[in-house]
């Protein structure tokens, strides 16, 4: 079968053409072409969704619950999310008009940005970060302004770094702690400093808290729970990471009603509603999934401890990641760029990691290693990384 390929009269939006494809793609292609690799390049849990959650979704299909739900999602699910946010993070949202169930946190990010950002508005993006923030800002016509963090500050964002980049056009700031790819967390005291600046300059905060539960050394503090921050925060979260539900695509946004109302406009026209069977799964996760989640969290913490310590023994400098499931070691001692390091490691030792520069400013000189892999894989990967580093240095 030969397929017709478009060559003429292709008319694309300049905006979209201006967006670079994700830097992760090249690595994906290279790693996919090779056999017997150990992948630490995966941005998702190594667990299958807990059975009770899968079973609840099967049951919803058996009962024929296959129609649309309300645009904002099943009321019962929104009520559970509301209860959960209050219990876990001491922040209250009215399920009637302050919570929207989205197609993953990814859609949540998109509608949050589109609801707030006008063309020309600047959005500060704390980097390194998840690959979609800056492109999504650009799609709104806004201007993403990177605010770099570094290992010297444990990848926490400083007030000075933000202040230096403020202009009269700055409208909002994107925070994501615990962070992908660095694993960094921000405690209450550090966040309060940022909050003071945010209030002083009347900014909106987009807070991606998808990894909130995966906080190992101290309790996660939600930006929205800080004094005076609730009404200027759009909180984005979801079920993917903590409940091992990536493929279901269920997330949620929580925000004061005027923001939620604006986001719901976009969501209802672009998406209608999140998948019904996935919403029933999420409902079960909220009601009966916490214990299994806690067991997964204990295991991530143990693997983090093992993996970070082993990377240091292998000769890579590594800050202590307080959350998520990533280590972000420095590879500067090898004299290579993060791209060279990742590519050579993959080809010579068959271990896949992601070069840090794809996650934005401050990422160069590091690689992201996910420790959401089995202990035996981690052990083997660490041996191979150690051999690689030793080889490079000799």
């Amino acid at each position, binding site marked *: 079968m030969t397929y017709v390929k478009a060559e003429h009269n292709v008319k694309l939006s300049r905006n979209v053409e201006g967006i670079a494809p994700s830097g992760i793609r090249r*690595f994906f292609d290279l790693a*996919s072409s090779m056999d017997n690799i150990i992948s630490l390049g*995966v*941005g*998702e849990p190594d667990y299958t969704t807990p059975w009770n959650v899968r079973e609840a979704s099967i049951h919803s299909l058996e009962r024929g619950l296959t129609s649309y739900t309300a645009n904002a999602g099943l009321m019962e699910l929104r009520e559970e999310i509301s209860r959960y946010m209050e219990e876990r993070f001491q922040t209250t949202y009215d399920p009637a008009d302050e919570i929207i169930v989205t197609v993953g946190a990814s859609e949540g990010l998109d509608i949050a940005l589109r609801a707030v950002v006008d063309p020309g508005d600047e959005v500060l993006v704390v980097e390194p970060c998840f690959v979609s923030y800056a492109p999504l800002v650009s799609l709104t016509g806004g201007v993403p302004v990177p605010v770099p963090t570094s290992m010297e500050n444990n990848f926490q964002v400083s007030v000075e770094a933000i202040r230096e980049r403020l202009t009269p056009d700055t409208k909002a700031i994107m925070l994501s702690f615990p962070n992908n790819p660095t694993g960094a967390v921000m405690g209450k005291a550090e966040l309060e400093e940022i909050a003071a600046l945010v209030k002083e300059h009347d900014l909106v905060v987009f807070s991606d808290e998808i990894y909130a539960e995966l906080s190992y050394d101290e309790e996660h503090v939600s930006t929205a729970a800080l004094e005076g921050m609730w009404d200027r925060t759009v909180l984005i979260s979801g079920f993917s990471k903590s409940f091992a539900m990536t493929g279901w695509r269920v997330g949620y946004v929580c925000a004061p009603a005027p923001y939620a109302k604006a986001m719901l406009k976009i969501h209802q026209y672009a998406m209608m509603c999140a998948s019904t069977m996935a919403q029933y799964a999420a409902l079960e996760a909220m009601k009966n999934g916490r214990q299994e989640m806690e067991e997964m969290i204990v295991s991530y913490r143990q693997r983090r*401890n093992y993996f970070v310590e082993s990377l240091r023994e292998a000769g890579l400098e590594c800050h202590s990641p307080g959350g998520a499931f990533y280590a972000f070691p420095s590879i500067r001692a090898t004299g290579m760029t993060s791209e060279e390091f990742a590519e050579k490691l993959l080809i010579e030792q068959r271990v896949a990691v992601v070069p840090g520069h794809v996650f934005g400013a401050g990422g160069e000189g590091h690689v992201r290693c996910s420790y959401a892999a089995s202990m035996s894989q981690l052990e083997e990967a660490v041996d191979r990384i150690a051999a690689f580093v030793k080889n490079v240095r000799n």
Partner: protein
Amino acid sequence: MTDKERELLLLIEKEGRMASDKLAKMLELPINEVRDMLSDLEEQKVILGYSAIIDWTKAVGTEMVTAMIDVKVTPQRGRGFDEVAERIYRFKEVKACYLMSGTYDLSVMIEGRTMSEIANFVSEKLSTLESVISTTTHFRLKQYKHDGIIFVDDDEDDHRMVVSP
């Protein structure tokens, strides 16, 4: 029991072979402390042994027959069920023995090479005990899950893409 001891036990309950240096890193403890902790727990008989979970149906030529036997007994004055339970669990054929609530008293798991071997054990050793009132023998047909390990499943396969954001 400290939190760290509990965490250690949960880890080796799943993976009994895990080396002390690995455990030490996972628990953020010095390796000597982990070794001491393990030997203390062994001494206190909290840890009774380390064993493998084996699917004998795949070990050709060594397939075993397993039966679960519901045993009704007469408890003895002053000793309750313990004495008769001991008479039973000391037989090496007995793999497990539990005191149960409900319609029978002891649940006894027996392993043998053949069904007749088990039948002999029940008729000659078990039902002839004075305190035993009756036995009901159930032969195990298939093992789906044992000690938290699923025997017939592909849950372990990693379906994730090799690299993702």
